[in-house]
């Protein structure tokens, strides 16, 4: 049997979902479930490892990325719907000694 390509959206406000499946390559169709049991299918952009995230909607550069219904960082560039979201396009806003005035 083929492994189910499953991802979870934790909070209704979230604009990313987390994949819990192996071997997700660009173009794979992934089923996103939420807590209420609803599901929707997305085609992902980029190879996405187990436990990593993708965007559920377009996120413009500078907009917050939301998981658990809370901000987990800011888009450091425009992100397409379905695109892999990680440190390459998400900037943390905390513990940023590099952004402090010297």
């Amino acid at each position, binding site marked *: 049997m083929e492994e189910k390509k499953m991802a979870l959206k934790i909070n209704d406000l979230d604009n990313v979902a987390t994949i819990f499946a*192996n071997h997700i390559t660009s173009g794979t169709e992934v089923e996103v479930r939420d807590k209420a049991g609803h599901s929707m299918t997305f085609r992902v952009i980029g190879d996405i490892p*187990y436990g990593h*995230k993708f965007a559920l909607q377009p996120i413009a550069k500078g907009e917050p*990325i939301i998981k658990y219904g*809370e901000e*987990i960082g800011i888009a450091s560039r425009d992100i397409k719907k379905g695109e892999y979201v*990680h440190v390459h396009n998400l900037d943390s806003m*905390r513990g940023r000694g*590099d952004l402090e005035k010297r």
Partner: protein
Amino acid sequence: MEFYGYKRPDGSYGARNYTAIIPSVTCANDVACAIAHQVQGTVVYQHHQGCSQMPPDLERVTNTLISLGKSPNVGAILIVSLGCEGTDHERMYQELSATGKPVEIIHIQELGGVSNAIRVGTDLARKLVIAISGQQRVPADISHVIMSIKCGASDTTSGMASNCVIGYVADKLVDLGATVIFGETTEFLGGEHLLAKRAVNKQVADKIYEIVNAMETRAKSVGVDMRRGQPTPGNIAGGLSSIEEKSLGAIVKSGTRPIQGVLDYPDHVTTQKGLWIKDTPGREPEILTGMAATGAQFMCFSTGRGAPQGFPSMPVIKICGNPNTYEKMENDMDINAGLIITGEKTIEEVGEEVFAKIIRVLGGEMTKNESIQYFSAIDIHCLGPVI
């Protein structure tokens, strides 16, 4: 509800009955270890502090070592002092003697060096372990439980599975009148507003913001992006993109009950009940020491990527949220919370499994970590420089 523990003179109940060999300074470690290696029933704390530090840190180290000796899992204490250290070994001896537990102290310099100190210390430790070895476990109400909690080597499964399980258990223990302590102040960054909302009053909420601000200020003082320090490369490889994401998953393990207050790193629980914060960093050697000093009889430790570390006198129950990791590291993981991710079990089902394991561990059952004694890398968290 009850568990079986060793009753201590202060009214607490231990899950273990160890004689603790406590070096008052890192320079006494080798003597302390030689004694512990030779004498059955002992544990040793190989820390790296206690001299050439700023006075507030010396006080912090002294108080932490005293709190470790007060742990209900410790029945007797041998302090191993070099003789010229910065910690207050005489105060350690006095305060630990006042607990009513048998306490001895040796000074390496006074005894004429290492080999004689090992000989004298070994004979004293033998007397101590024999003196407490006949003590029997007695029934204790569950409200005497002090549970510490932590997540380490986290990935994105931690916040969705293993930390949810610990949150379930934390709520259950708080409702039964027990004490639950969580820490890892660095992993409040981005989630501190959610914790502050659960504080019992404004003072506690303010204190939560204060410790988070102090931790973030220390990190920022280096002038770089904190990423790779926190989250770690392993966290990032596991899908955690920022400290905010890591924190929001980490605080899930504190459950949902009100936060009663904030303990300082060396503090030992006396009458505190309910859910408390202890101000600690996230790294294993320092937080495990801080939690054992709290007086926790055990720790529930959530992991995604597979953190095997434990602590000499505090059993650590490993709860693994990642089903792939559990399969690879089953020998080091006590509970498979990965079954929540695969949809085979609910949070409540795994939570009850953990709760049953807790009662058994309190009564003497070993954790996987204890069975392989993987717990020598410990340390005391200090704030100032080594000078």
